[in-house]
Structures are given as C-alpha cells and as structure tokens.
C-alpha cells in the first residue's frame, strides 16, 4: 500500500515536472522556430506566447507579410498568428524627364565651358561623346544627372 502511494506520488511529480517543463520550453522553442522563418525579412520579429504567435515589425511589401504569416502558421505548435506588423509605404517613383529642346539647351549650357564634349539627341536618347579630363567629366555628369533624364548614353573618354 505504502509502496503504491510512493509510486503514485513519484509519477505525479514526474508528470507535473514534465508538463511544466514542456510548456516552458515550448513557447521559447516555438519563438525560436518562428523567428527562423523570418530571416528573409529584416526589421520584423515574432514572439510566441501560449502557442499564439505575435508578429510585429515592418515588411517591405504586403506579399512578404502574407508569406511570413503563412510560414508561421505552418510551424507546428503555433495555434494562431496575431498580425501586428505593418508594410512600409511605397516610395513615389522617380520622375524621369524626356529629352526635349529645353533639356538639350540645359545640357549644351553645361557643356559650353567643356571643350571636346558634345551632346546629341540620338533617337530620343541623349548621347555624350568626346574626350576630356575626369574633372570635366564629373562636371558634365553633375549637370546631366541634375536633369534626371533616365538612361542616357555616356561615351565620353577620359584621358
């Protein structure tokens, strides 16, 4: 009788320890597993509490965020995902100017004091040709870049 009691008490102790241990390890381990699924998304983090994953941080896109949520749901032991993350605002596209007469005038003004360099509109693309020094090539690029005309052809040779 006494022996049976001892065994029962021991079994109870073992089982309680096991349960509490299992639960503690569980959340921490789940957090670590869940965090691994977020390595591709810098600036984000996740914490698992009682099997509930709390996702936070800033994602680059909505698709990234959705993919992360789906991945978290697949982590065994995660019961649900609480989405507290946000998506970074999309930057307005850079306004690129077309090469027109006004732009060409500005480019030619910029080239006025730089002998040997010529600008031409070749089928809608500004094309720079000639030979000059690196210092002058820099002046040309500073002026042309200020006009933001997108892709242009820079064939300047620096001597």
């Amino acid at each position: 009788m006494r022996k049976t009691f001892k065994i029962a008490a021991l079994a109870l102790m073992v089982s309680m320890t096991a349960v509490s241990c299992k639960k503690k390890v569980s959340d921490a381990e789940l957090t670590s597993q869940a965090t691994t699924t977020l390595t591709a998304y810098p600036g984000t983090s996740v914490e698992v509490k009682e099997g509930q994953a709390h996702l936070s941080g800033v994602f680059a896109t909505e698709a990234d965020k959705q993919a992360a949520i789906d991945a978290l749901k697949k982590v065994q032991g995660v019961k649900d995902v609480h989405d507290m993350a946000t998506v970074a605002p999309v930057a307005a596209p850079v306004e690129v100017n077309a090469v027109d007469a006004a732009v060409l005038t500005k480019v030619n003004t910029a080239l006025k004091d730089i002998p040997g360099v010529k600008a031409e509109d070749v089928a809608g693309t500004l094309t720079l040709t000639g030979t000059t020094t690196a210092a002058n090539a820099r002046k040309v690029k500073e002026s042309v870049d200020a006009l933001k005309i997108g892709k242009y052809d820079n064939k300047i040779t620096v001597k």
Partner: protein
Amino acid sequence: MSLQDKYASVVSAAQSAGISDLSVQEQDGILYITGKASNSASKDSVWNALGAIDSSYTATDINIDVQVSGLAAGASLTVATNESNLNIRQEPSTDAAVVGKAAKGETVTLVEQSSDDWWKIKTADGEEGYAYARYLKA
C-alpha cells in the same frame, strides 16, 4: 550584385554628409540618389565617393541629383571658375547680356537661388545678375 550594393559607399557618404530629404531609389536599372546639401563640401563628398568607384564619372546606372539648396539671401559665395572670370548675366541664360564679371576666388553675395543651375548674385561693386551655379561654392 544590386546597384544598392555597388554604390553603397556613395549612399553612406550622402548619409554622413547630412544630405536632407535624401532618397535612394532603384528604378529601371538606375540608382537615383536625390537630396539637398547645405553647402558645396557636402555635395562634393557624395561625388568624391562616386569618383572612388567610377574614376571617369561616366557611369549611367547611377544618377546623383544632390543640389546645394536652402541658402539664405546674403550668403557668401566663392567664385570657383577654372581660370577665367565668371560672367554675370541679365537673365538666367548664356544667351543673355553680360552685366558684370567676378574674378576667380572673389567673394560674392547670394541674392537668390533662382534654379538649380542659375543663381542670382551681387558683387562687392554692386553688379547684380545671374551666374552659372557650377562656378559658385557655398
């Protein structure tokens, strides 16, 4: 290798130079670095960083539009021509009449930054008009 990686040193130069309204955007194969510099030295540090990567300054996959702006009227500017005098013109155009000249190294006063490429200035002798901004250091 992305353009952001290729030109990381230019971006970090812009950040450490304190360029305001700084934006770094990759679009159609070009990395656009746009912002405002409070003086010529800040702008130059960005371009020097490019020179360390592209010593001929002919790369077209990067577009640096960093302009010295926000200068107050009355700011002192130094004439930075190669050798010749700086023409001061009636209108912001090389076709406009020359109303005065400023020597290399001379200090002039800013009246207003009319545009990115033409600034209205005044010399110590009182000559007032537009000069090409490339030749003015703030």
